[in-house]
């Protein structure tokens, strides 16, 4: 692994610069409906575990479907994933970034299926490990989120030379399922995810 790093010299963010709920980070949040303003009032851990205990939680019937899991929580779940070639987290390498995480509410009041879209930014445009990183993100979210979430992981447009190909692979449920039955690949993924919690 050490010999042929795709990017031997990545830019690394200081952990204190990473987005977290505890700081006044409202400036970073998208101004799209104001739910962000109240996030800081909600005690973080209780909130998170509640949502997990009750996966099919009441589909909020009040008009603007409020999500009980927000982008910051998604970020917290995946930013700690370890990069497969550096002993650093995807957050500190800016591979995953809070503004590139979006939660789309159910498209119909009759449905409780929400979609999480994560766009990842490989450290360099031809990073051969982009697929593995994307797979790690998808697997982490599929394991951690309740099943009512669909997880779409993509390479951020223009940040990778073969993004269409990688996106197609990451979006293919059957390929992802088969990959998880592949011992070697699972070994790599397990190492990447070992740093989560």
């Amino acid at each position: 692994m050490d010999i042929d790093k795709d990017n031997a010299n990545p830019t690394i963010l200081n952990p204190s610069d990473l987005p977290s709920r505890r700081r006044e980070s409202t400036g970073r949040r998208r101004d799209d409906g104001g739910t962000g303003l109240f996030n800081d009032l909600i005690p973080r851990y209780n909130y998170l575990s509640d949502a997990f205990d009750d996966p099919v939680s009441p589909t909020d019937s009040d008009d603007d479907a409020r999500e009980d899991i927000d982008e910051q929580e998604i970020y917290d779940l995946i930013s700690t994933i370890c990069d497969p070639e550096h002993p650093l987290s995807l957050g500190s390498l800016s591979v995953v970034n809070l503004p590139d995480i979006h939660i789309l509410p159910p498209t119909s009041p009759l449905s409780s299926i929400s979609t999480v879209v994560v766009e990842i930014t490989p450290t360099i445009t031809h990073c051969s490990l982009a697929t593995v990183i994307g797979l790690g993100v998808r697997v982490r979210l599929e394991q951690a989120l309740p099943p009512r979430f669909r997880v779409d992981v993509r390479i951020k447009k223009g940040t990778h030379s073969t993004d269409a190909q990688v996106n197609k692979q990451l979006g293919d449920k059957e390929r992802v399922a088969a990959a998880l039955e592949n011992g070697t690949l699972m070994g790599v993924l397990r190492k990447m995810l070992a740093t989560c919690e």
Partner: protein
Amino acid sequence: MSAPPDSPTYTLSPLATLTPPSNSRTWQSAPHPSLPIVATACSDRSVRVYSLTSFTLLHSITGGHKRSVRSVSWKPGTQGQSVLATGSFDSSAGIWRRDERGTLEDDFTNRRIGSAEDDDQDDEADDYQFSCILDGHESEIKSLSWSPSGQYLATCSRDKSVWIWEELEDDNFETVAVLQEHDGDVKCVAWHPEEDLLVSTSYDDTVRLYREDADDWVQVSMIDGHDKTVWWAEFEGSDMSKRDFRAQRVGLDGEKLRDIEALERSGPRLATCSDDCTVRVWRRKPKERDENASSNTGIPSIIRSVAIDEDWYQEAILPQQHERAIYSVSWSHITGMIVSAGSDGKIIVYKERWRAQTPKGANGVEMHDDQGATIEDTQPLTEWVVVAELISAHDVFEINHVSWAKRADKGKRWDDEEVIVSTGDEGEARVWTLDETGVSQA
């Protein structure tokens, strides 16, 4: 969708969940061609065979595959025994047999209902016996399918190839073709109901058709219409124009009668579904009689004859109700209705009907956009409408497969009544009835 005045609407109602369900992702449920049973392909490496009479588990087939079982297919036309093919992510296919003598259709179902006590202790002989393994693919098998005659078994894989196996005698399979036309994983294989015509769909977004030409299986057509991975394909049943809405011929004008004739010359159509969120129907251009065969010029043909090539064109895009990848589509061989399901957890049922007569050019908007660029001022005479929609059919889970099956439980209301069997990520296979709920007013 606003249904025009006289459009009947249907409701999907839950009839049963096959129990006990698997608790890991189940990929597919294959109804037996003659017995009231269904086999499910499960990611826990097992196949479960359930009764469609009692909706309970009859057999578990385990210990064969080393990884997920992705696909199952019953061999048609077997006498006295059931033969099941299983395709797995371990890149092998398995053949399993069970003696059904003495458990003819009626006995079989009665026994299960009547004497529930001795059911749980099936002897060895009562179980499905492993009979042989088909090795050859380099990576995961995604789908497999027996030809209607039972002579051929087609398998396809992530290794981009389609294999055709011929069963020479029991348990002696020969590879008769390895077709490598696709540029990506081959997701599905299916056979034409009347001809030895095979279709495959792929990650490369194309659909390909093959048949045998002078001892060699060759590609005879390539369909390039979907924008993304084509997950599934299924042919229409035989002679459907005698059974579906076309069966009612009284009062049809000459144009419609000619349309039916043309369809009968084309033969069964093909339905495909894709990651691009569409279900499409494809139709074969009937072959002209010999007059057009200008290739008969006496030139010795080293290159295979063009005459075997087929032209399949897009006849319709079904109304778009799905929001995510559509994994499965199934064509009722009784009513001609189509059902589809996928990642968004919806089950959608579509029905074809005569298009309401309108002055030319009045309603050109809906069906034909891309392929229909050649909207030869003749619009198709038929259209597909959504007649039933069920949201969250497997709660929040994705639906991997959907299929029609003959209804076989006590509640069956008429001969030929069908149920829909859907298979989900949570491991359950659910059975639904389709009831006409009346005529909606526009």
